[in-house]
């Protein structure tokens, strides 16, 4: 994750190896690229062709051009997409709010503890995703301390945390936090502290210096972090199933259930293709707006 950001655009090494042997890079690339082509690109085509199939029997489908699969999927499940994007969007904003000060703290205030703190920030994510989410179920449970306290304040619509959208968003925020923290950290860490000193020397108030120097310089990290959080969060369904109520299931769950349990392959394929298309459109327009296209 950090590595994506540490890539400087257009950087080409001047290392003294293998000059003039035009075929070497292709030999090096071939096995990996072949694997990605066969098991990533080709499957996308199978996905599209599956999504256009026609049902001819109970578990039987034949190749066709059923555009109706798409229109049906959109009309039936548009609210699921909206719900997923809403939850993922809120979780991304929350993750940014939590991770920015944290990354700032590690990059500028932690001194010799920097590496240790970085390990600590990532460490919780070594324990399995499912086990972590299940632990949140235990933490937020109805007779748990946190729920008693928050419900006591009387601000919750359903008077509980578990099995509500709040728990789903909290789970998403937590589980994808390192995808936000690491890119933010790596862009903050690369800021030359002398630039901030210069702002101070020029009589910028600390906050003005932060707003006009630190924030703009950390934008690549913000863009990468929000993308790396939003994309997996929008497709996730584990948090929604383990922490949410029956109405909080996200689109990922519908896709999985349609594909694996109901064996309704065309609808499931159409749903996943729509998800991919929507995310790509969102990402492209966001990246364009943020003006950091070289990131891709």
């Amino acid at each position: 994750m950090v590595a994506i950001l540490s890539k400087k655009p257009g950087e080409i090494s001047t290392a003294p190896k293998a000059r003039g042997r035009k075929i070497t890079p292709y030999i090096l690339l071939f096995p990996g690229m072949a694997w990605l082509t066969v098991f990533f690109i080709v499957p996308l085509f199978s996905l599209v062709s599956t999504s256009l199939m026609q049902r001819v029997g109970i578990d039987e489908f034949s190749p066709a051009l059923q555009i109706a699969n798409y229109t049906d999927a959109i009309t039936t499940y548009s609210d699921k997409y909206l719900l997923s994007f809403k939850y993922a969007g809120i979780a991304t904003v929350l993750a940014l709010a939590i991770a920015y000060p944290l990354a700032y703290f590690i990059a500028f205030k932690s001194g010799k503890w920097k590496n240790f703190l970085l390990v600590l920030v990532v460490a919780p994510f070594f324990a399995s995703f499912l086990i972590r989410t299940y632990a949140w179920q235990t933490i937020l449970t109805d007779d748990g301390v946190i729920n008693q306290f928050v419900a006591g304040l009387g601000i919750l619509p359903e008077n509980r945390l578990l099995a509500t959208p709040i728990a789903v968003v909290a789970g998403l925020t937590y589980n994808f936090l390192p995808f936000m923290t690491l890119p933010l950290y790596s862009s903050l860490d690369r800021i030359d502290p002398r630039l901030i000193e210069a702002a101070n020397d020029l009589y910028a108030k600390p906050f003005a210096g932060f707003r006009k120097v630190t924030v703009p310089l950390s934008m690549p990290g913000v863009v990468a972090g929000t993308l790396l959080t939003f994309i997996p969060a929008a497709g996730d369904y584990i948090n929604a199933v383990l922490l949410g109520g029956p109405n909080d299931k996200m689109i990922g769950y519908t896709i999985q259930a349609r594909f694996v349990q109901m064996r309704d392959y065309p609808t499931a394929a159409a749903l996943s293709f729509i998800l991919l298309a929507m995310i790509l459109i969102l990402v492209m327009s966001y990246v364009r707006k943020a003006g950091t296209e070289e990131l891709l």
Partner: protein
Amino acid sequence: MTKVVSRPSLSHRVNFWVRDHLIVFYGIAALIYLFAPIVVVAIFSFNKPEGRSNSSWNYFSLDAWTNICRDQNICASLQTSLQIGLGSTILATILGTLISFALVRHRFHGRSTTNLLIFLPMATPEVVLGASLLALFLSIGLPLGPITIFIAHTMFCISFVVVTVKARLQGMDPRLEEAAQDLYADEKATFRYVTLPLVAPGIAAAALLSFSLSFDDYIITSFNSGTTVTFPMYVWGAAQRGIPAQVNVIGTIMFVGSLAMVLVAQAVGRARHKR
């Protein structure tokens, strides 16, 4: 005249102190938040649950720790996950490392296409990766099982290996290799004695990352596993009827083990650096 020296005003100093320390308190609060679920997992690994569900405290017991394989399905699923994890880590690390060398060390046509093909799997939601692979396996009639999981895991690990190893290669000082060649090392010797030792930490990090991605994956696996049960698949299945405390034990071991591994690696790196 009593006071000539202009000291920063009190409010200014208070402001500064708060600003400087607020962020520290914030950092501590954030760490508590990050570790809360881990602490819960560890505590409940010592619980003796009353019924099937291990979500309310009953009494302290070492049962789960001394008898991890009581439910044989747990250990069978662990073994499956370890095998698939090792296999896909080895293959993805090799394929990804080769790609990184090509990208950093060579000029060639199709560079931006290559970069795009590396980036896209990371920008695709897991459900889509899982669903499209399943669509492929169904259409070519490949039966689902350990092989299809292995194929899927290798696929999504390659990109992560490439970005990790590439970063390490780009961070290397090219003068080190030039120096070796100036000292009449041939290409093979330069690679063997200079390049490889310098890239090794990056390759090791990439392998660790691959292994943990593969070992932890649920969503993609759930599409392509057929009847094979990996450890996350086991946990998911168990979640419906109550997760046994043994799962907490394994979660705790995974956490402590990988934390220890990373910290030792860091210490070794620092010691080498000092030498």
